[in-house]
């Protein structure tokens, strides 16, 4: 049994003991979800998320009330989410069965998720809804009305292309599937040629036309002029770096060298700037573990039953 497995077992034992102790010994316990049952205007019942604090206050006000209730399904879900979070973090130490389970569930659920989204958000409204509006209206989209409800025969084109695409699964004639592919490639090669040329190429040249001598209410503003010179010079040098026809030697080499300096400063700044966002992502996950699951901390006072009990967390 090598060192890794020993560490896993130790971690496991300490973790399990702590969780058990926490759930049983402390009076508030941990990791429980509550719901609030409300009647919707149309008569159906709806379950809104509620906190342990709401539940205890409601119990104090009227013991045995049923509006705020403990929800077993959501509690199981909470513990599942906590397991998945820990399983993914465990990969940082080493690849292990828990991570493989989490990875498999994620691949399966996410593939299924996007296919369901594709069906209900694209196929039903944009294909079936356009070709057989009455059928969709009777089945899943009663609200369909107005221009959307008229049949639009143009949508035969994507249907035909779609069938051609699926012909790949047929034993013979799979070459037909290339037609929809070439249709897609052709359209987006054309669209993006225009889009990038007009949006990026022209716009960036226009934005770089700046005066090298800046006058602020008559007076010559030295620093603003230096700023514009740096921007214009930087763009020209960096564009020179991308030249293909000349080797980076001699005069072109020196200009390209200045250009790569600008690019490196750009990359360094962008790297430093995004660090804060990434750390916020980790902080949110750890707050989920400590607050929602383990009930160790309660920064937003969701489980503070009343100011009286403030003492415990004080």
């Amino acid at each position, binding site marked *: 049994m090598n060192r890794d497995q020993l560490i896993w077992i130790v971690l496991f034992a300490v973790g399990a003991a702590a969780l058990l102790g926490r759930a049983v010994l402390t009076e508030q316990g941990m990791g429980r979800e509550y719901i609030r049952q409300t009647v919707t*205007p149309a008569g*159906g019942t*709806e*379950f809104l998320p509620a906190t342990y604090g709401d539940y205890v206050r409601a119990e104090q006000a009227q013991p045995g009330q049923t509006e705020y209730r403990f929800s077993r399904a959501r509690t199981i*879900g909470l513990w*599942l*989410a906590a397991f998945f979070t820990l399983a*993914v*973090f465990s990969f*940082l130490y080493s690849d292990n069965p828990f991570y*493989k389970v989490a990875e*498999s*569930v*994620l*691949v*399966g*659920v996410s*593939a299924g*998720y*996007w296919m*369901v989204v*594709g069906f209900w958000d694209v196929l039903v409204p944009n294909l079936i809804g356009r070709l057989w509006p009455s059928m969709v209206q009777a*089945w899943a989209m*009663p609200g369909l009305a107005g221009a959307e409800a008229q049949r639009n025969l143009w949508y035969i084109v*994507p*249907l035909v*292309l*779609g069938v051609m*695409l*699926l012909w790949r699964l047929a034993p013979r004639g799979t070459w037909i599937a290339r037609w929809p*592919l*070439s249709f897609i*490639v*052709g*359209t*987006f090669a054309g*669209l993006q*040629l225009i889009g*990038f040329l007009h949006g990026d190429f022209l716009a*960036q040249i226009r*934005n770089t036309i700046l005066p090298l001598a800046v006058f602020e209410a008559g007076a010559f503003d030295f620093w603003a002029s230096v700023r514009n010179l740096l*921007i214009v010079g*930087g763009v020209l*040098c*960096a564009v020179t770096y991308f030249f293909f026809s000349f080797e980076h030697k001699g005069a072109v080499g020196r200009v390209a060298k200045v250009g790569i*300096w*600008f690019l*490196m*400063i*750009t990359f*360094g*700044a962008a790297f*430093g*700037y995004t*660090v804060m966002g*990434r*750390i916020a*992502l*980790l902080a949110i996950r750890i707050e*989920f573990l400590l607050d929602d699951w383990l009930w160790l901390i309660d920064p937003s006072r969701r489980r503070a039953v009343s100011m009286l009990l403030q003492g415990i967390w004080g």
Partner: protein
Amino acid sequence: MKRTVPLLITAVVGFTLIGAYFVPYTQSWGETVAIWFDVLAAIAFILGGGNLLRSHLKKISDQQRGWAYSIIVLASFLGTLFVGLGKIGVAPSPQFLEYSWSGPYRQTGSAFWYFYQYAFQPLTSTIFALLAFYIASAAFRAFRAKNLEAILLLATAFIVLLGRTFAGVALTGWIDPANWEGFRHFTGLRLENLTVYIMAVFNTAGNRAIMIGIALGIVATSLKILIGVDRSYLGKD
């Protein structure tokens, strides 16, 4: 026949859409084609889903290494698909109570919502959170002053990082006209102002040049595809 027709389709469709951009009546063709693409991509899910099923079923039947996990993939995939397409646990929308399928498929409390809330969302956000760890290990390994470019990369990242903490502001807080009149000209050197200057000047210039280069690259790549110089995506004859 198998290759000339697709090439023809690509060229005709591509140049038509380029032309359509300049004729007032046809400027909306771009959006219509984009909607058609979404439909086509949704239909193509069948190919993707089919491939997913086939490759994992094959892994199970051949008992390849890790086949047990393939069972989990298939179970969660088919489970999510069944629950989502079947709108399990979705109450019909209030205005159309008699249409049982009218409720939104993402309704809170439905089974599909449960899969999203307690599996999809925690897993994806935790994988995203791994980035914080990888940024730290990348900082330790990659930011070494090997040559001038690496020094510029590391120095800028260092300044921006420092500028975003209170230590950075405190470190150069003494450059304050209140302490000495002469500092008035040097306030630009305070760390947070330096960060602003770097972002507003160097970052702007660098990104502009990259975007100009990309636009030119796209023009050439698209043209090569439209006139058939590049046809690798079409496969063999």
